[in-house]
């Protein structure tokens, strides 16, 4: 066991703020995942399906990767491969140089932590700003993230307040929404002026070459939409064969990460913005990072590559609940980190992490992919032990015990000697209160039973096989009762879909209003505040011009949602509210599907603080998979970027306090028309 790890353990256990935060995290996240998983008709079947999908990646990896790269290139995404962290960083810097980049806006990416990208770019003179609220906080403090989903998990609002007061020049406050608002305004300027956006990739599809980003705050959307250059970093294992497979994984990733049916935003990128007036970055690069993954694939730890980085195992792990992420000393903490870290970076450096586990299996139980983490922890321990790792007295003790246990008569003799020794130590007490070092590691917090003077072996021998053993009770047999089969579910009617959509969106703080198309103007006028300022719209043909004309006649200034803005007077940044037309709605999650468009649908749906979306009831589908099957896949292929929007922008990065409207709109109103 590395000495520094041991120090980290002591530090974590003696930090009451961390302990409270970790307890809070475990309780909230576990309950959230339980509730969210219960909304699936057959959670076990979905998990099995997802596991089979991820298994195909391990079985068919290189061909699938080749298909994926081909699809990306057909989508006009520039694909670069990096075998090492150093090479990946060098690729990013080279792209930055090519486009004369000075300011980089960065969304959350575990791979970027893994390759230590920020210090690399900063050494080269670039300014890199983390834009996820939690990452922004830890970057200001010069700390690594403490959890893969909740980077500032370890901090209380007082500490964040002090950090913001020190670095952002705001007066000290403990008001989470005030802090979030300052972060919003500070980072908005970064988004609008950044020369390059960097994001990770949650999952990518080999058939359509889609890069999928699963986010809540809207910063992931900003960095892939506003800066002229977008660089996506992706571990080469984060693939699924088809976009239909993606739909299956998306049923599990948000549910198990944050307890959401779907995150506020799911961004699906098929390529750069195609037109002069882009609705999404004009240059897109994808850097595929190996950095030990192919090597790991050839080991018994390969199953660890099936991870979808939901963090459920961290939240379920009783050891993580005591330690938090920092103690692991790796970008990948917790149970899966104790597999992935030695798998990617070597057992010599990270093998000791596998011993920070009781093998209780809570991780595997929580894992939506059912990754057998305990099996691999055992394997890492074996490698670590074989390499000479571990405490000396334990190494000697285990060997000695093994030697004795394979010699039954010697074992019995040793038992009798130990019984004598422990009975002396017990000094007449039932249990031992003290044992000499190193066994005092036990008696520090526990008494220990003395070895029995008459072992079971001896009792059996001396009593003719325990001939008189008897019970004060007996078994009772009953007929077995079997539960009846559940009734098959019926397919939902259009009315059901409306009800389901409304319930789902309302549950995530969105608003749904059923309106007749002729009443849209009147409804908007009623909903929007008197000092509403200019509106931003994006709608093609059909209804948009008529509605915009009506709004203009009523004296409401309307801008088109284009970015970069053709002129200052048309700057969408001025808009206080936006209106867009949705291509489809997903009833199970209360989601609207918004495609990028030459008139700027994505920009208009992202920049203003309030967003109205017009959705026709006829465009409602049961879920993402149903939309894909009903023509959605063709729409996806033809669109450089599609965003699934589920409720307002949100964050829980400060003390897990929910705050709406971080970077994207804080208010979302869907006008549902017949």
């Amino acid at each position: 066991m590395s000495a520094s790890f041991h120090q980290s353990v002591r530090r974590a256990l003696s930090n009451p703020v961390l302990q409270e935060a970790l307890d809070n995290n475990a309780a909230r996240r576990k309950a959230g995942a339980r509730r969210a998983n219960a909304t699936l008709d057959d959670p076990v079947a979905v998990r099995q399906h997802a596991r089979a999908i991820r298994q195909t990646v391990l079985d068919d990896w290189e061909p699938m990767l080749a298909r994926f790269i081909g699809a990306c290139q057909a989508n006009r995404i520039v694909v670069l491969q990096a075998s090492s962290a150093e090479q990946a960083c060098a690729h990013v810097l080279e792209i930055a140089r090519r486009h004369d980049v000075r300011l980089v806006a960065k969304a959350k990416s575990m791979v970027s932590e893994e390759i230590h990208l920020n210090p690399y770019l900063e050494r080269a003179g670039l300014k890199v700003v983390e834009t996820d609220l939690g990452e922004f906080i830890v970057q200001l403090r010069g700390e690594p993230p403490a959890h893969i989903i909740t980077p500032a998990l370890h901090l209380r609002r007082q500490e964040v307040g002090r950090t913001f007061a020190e670095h952002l020049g705001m007066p000290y406050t403990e008001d989470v929404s005030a802090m979030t608002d300052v972060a919003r305004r500070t980072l908005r300027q970064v988004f609008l002026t950044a020369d390059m956006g960097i994001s990770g990739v949650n999952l990518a599809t080999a058939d359509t070459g889609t890069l999928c980003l699963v986010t809540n705050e809207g910063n992931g959307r900003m960095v892939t939409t506003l800066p002229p250059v977008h660089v996506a970093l992706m571990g080469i294992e984060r693939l699924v064969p088809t976009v239909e497979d993606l739909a299956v994984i998306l049923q599990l990733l948000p549910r198990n990460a944050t307890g959401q049916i779907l995150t506020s935003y799911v961004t699906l990128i098929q390529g750069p913005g195609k037109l002069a007036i882009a609705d999404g970055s004009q240059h897109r690069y994808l850097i595929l990072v190996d950095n030990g993954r192919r090597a790991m694939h050839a080991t018994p730890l390969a199953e660890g590559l099936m991870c979808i980085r939901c963090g459920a195992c961290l939240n379920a792990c009783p050891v993580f609940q005591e330690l938090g992420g920092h103690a692991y000393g790796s970008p990948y903490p917790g149970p899966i980190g104790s597999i992935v870290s030695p798998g990617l970076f070597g057992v010599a450096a990270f093998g000791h992490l596998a011993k920070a586990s009781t093998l209780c299996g809570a991780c595997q139980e929580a894992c939506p992919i059912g990754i057998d983490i305990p099996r691999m922890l055992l394997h890492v321990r074996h490698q670590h032990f074989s390499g000479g790792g571990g405490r000396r007295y334990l190494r000697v003790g285990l060997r000695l015990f093994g030697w004795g246990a394979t010699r039954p008569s010697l074992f019995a003799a040793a038992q009798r000697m130990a019984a004598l020794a422990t009975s002396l130590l017990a000094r007449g007490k039932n249990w031992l209160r003290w044992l000499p070092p190193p066994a005092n590691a036990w008696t520090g917090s526990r008494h220990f039973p003395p070895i029995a003077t008459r072992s079971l072996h001896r009792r059996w021998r001396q009593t003719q096989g325990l001939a008189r053993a008897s019970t004060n009770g007996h078994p009772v047999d009953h007929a077995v009762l079997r539960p009846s089969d559940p009734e098959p579910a019926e397919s939902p009617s259009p009315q059901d879909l409306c009800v389901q959509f409304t319930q789902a969106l309302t549950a995530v703080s969105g608003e749904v209003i059923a309106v007749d198309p002729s009443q849209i103007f009147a409804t908007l006028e009623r909903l929007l505040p008197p000092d509403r300022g200019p509106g931003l719209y994006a709608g093609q043909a059909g209804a948009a011009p008529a509605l915009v004309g009506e709004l203009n006649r009523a004296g409401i200034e309307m801008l088109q949602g284009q970015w970069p803005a053709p002129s200052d007077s048309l700057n969408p940044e001025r808009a206080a509210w936006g209106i867009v037309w949705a291509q489809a709605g997903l009833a199970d999650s209360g989601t609207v599907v918004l495609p990028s468009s030459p008139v700027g649908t994505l920009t208009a749906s992202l920049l203003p603080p309030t967003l109205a979306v017009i959705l026709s009831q006829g465009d409602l589908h049961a879920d993402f998979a149903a939309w894909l099957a009903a023509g959605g896949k063709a729409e996806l292929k033809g669109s450089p970027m599609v965003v699934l929007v589920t409720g307002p922008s949100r964050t829980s990065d400060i003390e897990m306090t929910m705050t709406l409207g971080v970077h994207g709109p804080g208010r979302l109103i869907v006008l549902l028309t017949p």
Partner: protein
Amino acid sequence: MRVQLFATCLVDSLFPGVGEAVVAVLRACEVQVAFPLDQTCCGQPAFNAGDWGSSRKMARQTIEVLEATQDPVVIPSGSCAHMVRHGYLQLFADEPAWLARADQLASRTYELSQFLVDILGVQAWAGVPGGTCAYHPSCHLLRGMGIESQPLQLLESIPEMQVTRLEPDCCGFGGVFSVDQPELSSAMLARKLQAVHASQAARVIGCDVSCLMHIEGGLRKQGLDVRCAHLAQVLAGDGGGLR
């Protein structure tokens, strides 16, 4: 019906009374019990600690001992039963001859409550009525072996027995983990002791003496009167603790 009892080294050395209770319970079910005398340890502590060389030696010895007959093997421990049923298959993955023997043994190995309920079909137990207890679902039993309802079914069927189901959180034992990571282990134990205390039960019941030894060791250290007992002891009508 005849079975071979693999008592586990902890029961043998520390809690022989649990072994006697297991024999009594099986006999009450009209099962003949054989106790192969060359048995020692299944090899799990070494396996979990990474010393697979030592573990293989103990596993081979255990396989040989339990190959004396083809009778089912009953183990009064979720974690040791898990070792025989699953651990051995990982341990001998690269040794086909031993893997085949391990697989054969695994297919006839059962944890005690699993054997009573799933194999013998015991639905309820007419034990000594009354009492309060907290049931601790040990990790390898629950998640490794998938045994959740069987011990509860037996326990809850005892007339007037009030059973509190403790949350399925690890007690922090983890074998060598308990001395390799004493601070972490103790922190996890403290949570378990709180849950035990909150249950107001007089006894903690489980199917693994390793976890129960850990919990009772903590209860005693804190000067609490709550004691632990193995499920077999409750079924045998023994009102006391582990020993």
